[in-house]
C-alpha cells in the first residue's frame, strides 16, 4: 500500500465538511422552517383541537374573572367570544401555514406578502 492510497485524515474531512456547511448556510440563510405535512385526518384533528382549546381557555378566564369581580354571566360571555376569536385565529394560522406564531409577522418573507 502506497502513501497515496491512504484515506484523507479525519480532521481534514471534518474541516471540509464544516466549510461546506458554512457555505450552504451562507447561501440560503432563510431556508425557512419545515412544517410537518399532516394527513387529512391529522389536519382535521389539529384544527378541532385548536378551536376547542382556545374557546375553553377563554371560558376558563371568563369564569375566573366572574368569580373575582362578581360579574356573574358577563365575564364568561365576553371571554367566550374572545376565546372563539382566538380559536378561529389559531385555525387560520395552522391552516395557512403561518405555524403557531402569535402575531401576524412571519419569519418567512413570502408569507408576509400575503397578509
Amino acid at each position: 500500500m502506497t502513501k497515496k492510497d491512504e484515506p484523507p485524515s479525519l480532521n481534514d474531512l471534518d474541516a471540509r465538511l464544516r466549510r461546506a456547511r458554512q457555505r450552504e448556510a451562507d447561501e440560503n440563510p432563510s431556508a425557512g422552517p419545515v412544517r410537518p405535512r399532516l394527513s387529512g385526518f391529522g389536519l382535521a384533528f389539529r384544527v378541532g383541537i385548536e378551536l376547542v382549546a382556545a374557546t375553553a381557555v377563554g371560558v376558563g378566564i371568563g369564569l375566573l374573572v366572574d368569580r373575582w369581580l362578581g360579574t356573574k354571566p358577563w365575564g364568561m360571555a365576553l371571554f367566550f367570544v374572545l376565546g372563539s376569536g382566538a380559536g378561529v385565529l389559531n385555525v387560520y394560522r395552522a391552516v395557512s401555514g403561518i405555524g403557531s406564531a402569535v402575531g401576524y409577522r412571519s419569519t418567512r418573507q413570502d408569507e408576509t406578502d400575503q397578509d
Partner: protein
Amino acid sequence: MAAAPPEDSPLHQFVIQPLVPIHIGNVDLSFTNSSLFMVVAATLVTLFLTLGMRGENLVPGRFQSMAEMSYEFVAGMVRDNVGSAGRKYFPFVFTLFMFVLFGNLLGLLPYSFTFTSHIAVTAALALVVIVGVTVVGIAKHGLHFLSFFVPKGVPAALLPLMIPIEVISYLSRPVSLSIRLFANMMAGHTMLKVFAGFVVLLGFLGGWAPLAMDVALTAFELLVAFLQAYVFTVLTCIYLNDAIHLH
C-alpha cells in the same frame, strides 16, 4: 346481561394503581404504575444512548446507528425550526423527544402502561415547555417580549380587541399541545382494547376479523407513537423560535 367486571373495560388500562403508597400530609405522592413506566422510559433512553455509543465506532453498528439517527433527527429539527440560536436548547428538546417517544412506544407492549395517555403527564410536559419558552423570551427581550401580543398592521382602534385574543391564543398553546398528545394516545389504545374485546366475544369462528383489525391498528399505533412524539417536539421548536426571534 350482567355488568362486565371492571377489568374487562377497554378503559381499565388507564387506571392508575399505586405501587408504593407514599402520603405526605394530605398529598398523595404514591409511586404508581405511571411513575414506574416513566422511570423505565428514562432508564431505557439512557441505556439506549450510552450502550449504543459505547463503541464509538467510525462505522456504526445497529444500536450506534439508531442512537446517531435519533440525535441527527432532533438536531435537524432544531436547526430547521429555530436556527443556530436554538443549539443551546438542543439538550432539552432531545430529552423531551426521547422521553415522549419511549413513553409512546413502551405503551404498545402488552401489559404495559402508557403514561403519555394521561393528561396529567402531557399537561405537565406542555407547561414546562410553555413556561420555559416564555422565560427564555423574557430573558432575551425583556419587556419587549410583550410586543409579541401586539399584531402588526392592525388599526389602533382594534387593539383592545386583538390583544386579549392574542393573549388567549398564546395561553391556549399548552392546552392544545397537551390535549393533542394525550387524546391521540388514549383514543388509539382504547380502540385497540375494544377490538381485542371483540376477538374474545366472537370466539374462534368470527374472531379473526377483529384480530386482523388489531394487527393493522397496532401498526398504525406505531406510526402514531412516532408522529405524536415528532409533533410535540416540532411544536416546542416552533414556540421556541417565536420566543427567540419574536416574529
